[in-house]
């Protein structure tokens, strides 16, 4: 039972990482009905920036927020330079563009930092504490804490500030929002910035576990897709719940199903996507899309 609980705790920690990246996907999906396939690569790139900052002697807790600011600015720039000119293009065009962006960012990271995996130091001590008989690693608890803090901040921003209100308005009703004086195009750019920063959190949190290299996020993005689809691709809260469920499920499957082990975890993530799309295509918290014909 204890071991089971430990697996659950580290599943929740992975879930926090998946949830952050899934939330990034949801933010952009809400804003423009588009899945940003470059989200994982953007997060990886941001993680390399954090790595470089720490490497140059900055303390982790300065490098971390600084990286988020840089990632935010990067997201805004990508929207302004790459996405905005094709904003009104068919969605397939946009999908291809984000795929191209993923390849580009991946290649740029390889060019700048190389493909040799690097150890990314964790700010959390390598020790464990016991809470009510359940032994949890401080690494896991730290990841859970940071992810939760970021998700709460995003929630407060979106639900309790005027800028968040404008962002939601612009995402759901661009035309009507413009008539209320909302600068929808900038709100979209802010959405990209925010998504980029939240995604960066997932990269930085997962890097100490995975080793940092340009392809680091390629499995994480699959789990994030699974989380977003499970939660309902339009629901930020759903992304978080989906992230935790996927994290725990994958972790338990890896630990207790001998045929899954360490190698087939990704298949579990993919299976979740397929099963959800067949059984409940709108996810747990998504609404069925009604279209007037």
């Amino acid at each position, binding site marked *: 039972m204890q071991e089971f609980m430990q697996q659950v705790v580290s599943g929740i920690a992975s879930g926090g990482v998946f949830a952050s990246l899934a939330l990034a996907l949801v933010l952009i999906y809400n804003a423009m009905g588009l899945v940003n396939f470059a989200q994982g690569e953007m997060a990886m790139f941001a993680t390399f920036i954090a790595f470089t900052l720490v490497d140059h002697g900055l303390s982790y807790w300065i490098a971390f927020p600084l990286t988020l600011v840089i990632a935010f600015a990067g997201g805004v720039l990508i929207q302004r330079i790459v996405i905005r000119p094709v904003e009104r293009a068919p969605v397939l065009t946009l999908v291809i563009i984000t795929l191209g962006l993923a390849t580009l960012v991946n290649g740029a990271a390889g060019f700048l930092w190389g493909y040799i995996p690097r150890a990314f130091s964790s700010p959390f001590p390598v020790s464990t504490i016991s809470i009510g008989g359940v032994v949890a690693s401080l690494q896991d608890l730290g990841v859970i804490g940071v992810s939760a803090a970021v998700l709460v901040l995003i929630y407060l921003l979106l639900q309790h500030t005027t800028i968040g209100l404008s962002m939601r*308005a612009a995402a759901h*009703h661009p035309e009507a*929002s*413009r*008539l209320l004086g*909302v600068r929808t195009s900038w709100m979209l750019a802010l959405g990209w910035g925010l998504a980029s920063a939240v995604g960066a959190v997932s990269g930085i949190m997962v890097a100490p576990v995975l080793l940092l290299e340009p392809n680091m996020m390629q499995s994480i993005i699959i789990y994030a897709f699974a989380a977003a689809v499970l939660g309902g691709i339009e629901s930020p809260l759903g992304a978080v719940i989906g992230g935790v469920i996927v994290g725990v499920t994958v972790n338990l499957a890896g630990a207790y199903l001998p045929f899954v082990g360490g190698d087939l975890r990704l298949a579990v993530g993919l299976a979740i996507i397929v099963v959800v799309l067949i059984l409940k295509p709108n996810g747990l918290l998504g609404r069925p899309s009604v279209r007037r014909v």
Partner: protein
Amino acid sequence: MPLLELEAVHAGYGPTTVLHGISLSIPEGGIVSLLGANGAGKTTTLRAITSGVRWSGDIRFSGRSLKRMHTEDVVRAGIAHVPEGRGILTELTVDENLKLGAHLRSDGAQVRKDYDRVFEYFPVLKERRKLSASTLSGGEQQMLAVARALLMRPRLMLLDEPSLGLAPIVVRAIFEIIRTINQTDHVAILLVEQNARLALEMSSDAYVLEVGRVAVSGASADLRGNESVRRSYLGY
């Protein structure tokens, strides 16, 4: 100087021209109605004013040309546009809709007073503040749209068929409040209506559009009294 002036405005969608040179003007604080059959270009005229459609010619607001301005800047200049279909943000709550009406204002105390007024005009909105705007009936949505426009503190309101699909008693109530807003706040109103009788009662001047041109214009009282105009253009 009129508050809003359209001069030979042409506008359309893609290759289709809908407005073939519309000229009209609205005095400061006045109520002007824009009448005509379906497809005459009434909605397109409003959309041209707030840059929802490409136009040529000239549109001046308070003496300043609105040429090449973005919708949000036209709105920020002081024009509230309640569009066809009311423009309610149904993903948001009633309260959030109202907040977005006032979100550009920095006069907090006055905003609170305006909220009180809005809730006095439309008590039902106060009751439903926390609910999703999608749960409101058509009449309540129209009230929300007018209330939100009031909170924007515009100098000009463009109202696109506020009576559409509403019960006569609700229409009366809403028009009464539109008139009150016009008088107390000195807000000019450009009213697009299918219900010509009602619109002519409200407005001081009127323009009748026919396939993208102004067919008749003049004082509302004159149009109302002119039987041939009423028969041929207004259908009553």
